[in-house]
């Protein structure tokens, strides 16, 4: 497989945003719809360059709203499709996310987060955690939320995200931040084996050979709507049982457990190394799937960990999931920066030391 960066199996330096784009293409996505917004615009720029050369569609939509609805159109035909944006743009896509869920359509949506609320700023943030894992839009629904912590993971989770979306007929979201989107790291890309999924529900034209397919989220009879919700949540339960991903780092003897994802986990690794050098027994659980959240891993850790520290680029959002997962069996404290600021390894180390000294707030 040869791309603009040479043979794809060989390591190349790529921006996270570009890695997402190329990985999507390798995963068979041929229809991309987007709208410019910092810090994710490289995804669109990359697609604009590549798609016309491989017979795909790149379309700069008139709005984020139109983009997600174009995605819905392609998804309705059973083809792999995606859109990408950053925080304020994802808010605009909210309506479409709900419809994708209600219609049980597979799609990949990328959020390269920036600080908020409102127009906020353009620097990295993780303050859309609630939005992604809880309240993306109206109605009862979930999205699979994948949180890469390296450029390689930006690519790998993009490919994985397409598979999960097809497997469970729902939206996979890549929840990254400005750092992940903008940074370059060596990455090795290979076309994944694309499995085939039953897409007999898709609108492909009846060919006058079958009853018409209807892609729809409207159920005026509440009993029917309730049934679709229960069925959907049954599927979500399967996902919670089978698709959880996380990384444990130095957890064997950890008395303090950091919870962090994305760039916060990268920063925390430095802090953990420094703390370990001073004899502090600290480790980390890094959720890779934010939904489904690695509840069991945290619950198990609570058996030997004294205190959890949630390191976040937000005012503290994932911390609620850590508390829920551990059933508040141990104190969970926050170490955070917000608004586009990133905690430094020194700040995280400082917090670790405070906690080691017995602080539980």
């Amino acid at each position: 497989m040869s791309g603009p960066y040479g043979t794809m199996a060989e390591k190349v330096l790529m921006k996270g945003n570009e890695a997402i784009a190329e990985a999507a293409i390798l995963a068979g996505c041929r229809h991309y719809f987007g709208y410019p917004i910092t810090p994710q615009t490289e995804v669109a720029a990359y697609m604009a360059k590549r798609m016309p050369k491989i017979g795909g569609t790149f379309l700069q939509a008139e709005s984020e709203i139109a983009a997600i609805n174009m995605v819905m159109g392609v998804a309705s035909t059973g083809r792999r499709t995606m859109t990408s944006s950053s925080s304020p743009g994802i808010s605009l896509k909210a309506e479409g996310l709900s419809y994708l869920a209600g219609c049980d359509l597979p799609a990949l949506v990328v959020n390269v987060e920036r600080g908020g609320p409102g127009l906020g700023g353009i620097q990295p943030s993780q303050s859309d955690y609630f939005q992604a894992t809880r309240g993306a839009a109206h109605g009862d629904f979930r999205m699979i939320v994948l949180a890469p912590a390296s450029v390689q993971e930006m690519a790998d989770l993009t490919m994985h995200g397409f598979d999960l979306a097809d497997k469970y007929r729902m939206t996979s979201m890549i929840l990254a931040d400005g750092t992940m989107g903008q940074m370059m790291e060596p990455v090795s890309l290979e076309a994944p084996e694309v499995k085939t999924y039953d897409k007999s529900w898709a609108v492909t034209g009846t060919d006058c050979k079958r009853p018409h397919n209807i892609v729809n989220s409207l159920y005026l009879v509440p009993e029917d709507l309730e049934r679709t919700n229960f069925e959907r949540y049954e599927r979500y339960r399967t996902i919670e049982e089978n698709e959880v991903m996380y990384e444990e780092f130095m957890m064997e003897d950890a008395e303090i457990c950091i919870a962090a994802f994305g760039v916060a986990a990268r920063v925390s690794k430095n802090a953990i190394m420094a703390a370990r050098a001073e004899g502090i027994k600290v480790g980390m659980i890094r959720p890779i799937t934010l939904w489904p959240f690695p509840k069991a891993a945290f619950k198990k850790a609570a058996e030997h960990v004294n205190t959890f520290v949630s390191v976040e680029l937000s005012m503290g959002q994932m911390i609620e999931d850590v508390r829920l997962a551990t059933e508040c069996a141990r104190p969970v404290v926050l170490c955070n920066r917000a608004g586009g600021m990133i905690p430094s390894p020194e700040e995280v180390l400082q917090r670790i030391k405070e906690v080691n000294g017995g602080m539980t707030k």
Partner: protein
Amino acid sequence: MTVFDKPKSLTDAPLHYCPGCTHGIIHRLVAEAIDELGIEGRTIGIAPVGCSVMAYNYFTVDMVQAAHGRAPAVATGVKRADPSKIVFTYQGDGDLASIGTCETVHAAARGENITIIFVNNAIYGMTGGQMAPTSLPGQITQTSPYGRDVATQGYPVKVCEMLSQLDGAGYLERVAVNNVKNIKNAKKAILKAFKNQVEGKGFSLIEVVSTCPTNWGLTPEKALEWLNDNMLPYYPLGVYKDKFAEEAAK
């Protein structure tokens, strides 16, 4: 001898529309066009939000139900996914000319090779008779109880006139379904709008001036009269743009 038959592209589902509503006629005209072009098996329709939300139940073709106003964007996605399919949207005035203006304008600007059937009856029907972007000045609705006051509620949006300014828009015609002559003409226009797409020509939109007896508070018959006396002077019928005919003439 059968002189009048149900088009193949209409299902047997009974229509839910109010007595005297013209959606039934327009559905039929769309189905007839699909039948005549022999495209039933490769047509995909996009249903809107509004009274015609359940249009997906009435056409035998594959259907997608879109969010309010987003049908042209969904249609764009479907069409781009497989350009060999014939893709149409069926939208009301609130859907197309208010909440979905942006999607409408840009689908036209792109010259998206789709067909839009735009049903303009100057009112929100599904929600019970509120002011629409196309409600006439002075028109009484639930949300303009003293009549639409243009000083505070602005002027109606004339969709065909507006879109005719766009280079991307191909074929724009306004028709009505208030009498046999107009219905016949509407049929021709809708057929042409689909044929344009089959021939790969580009964006076609047919605005169908129609009635809403229930929310206008009129009998079906009086509603047709009201359409004739009030709607048509404000929304003159005719071809607003036919870029394809102009190009052919060159």
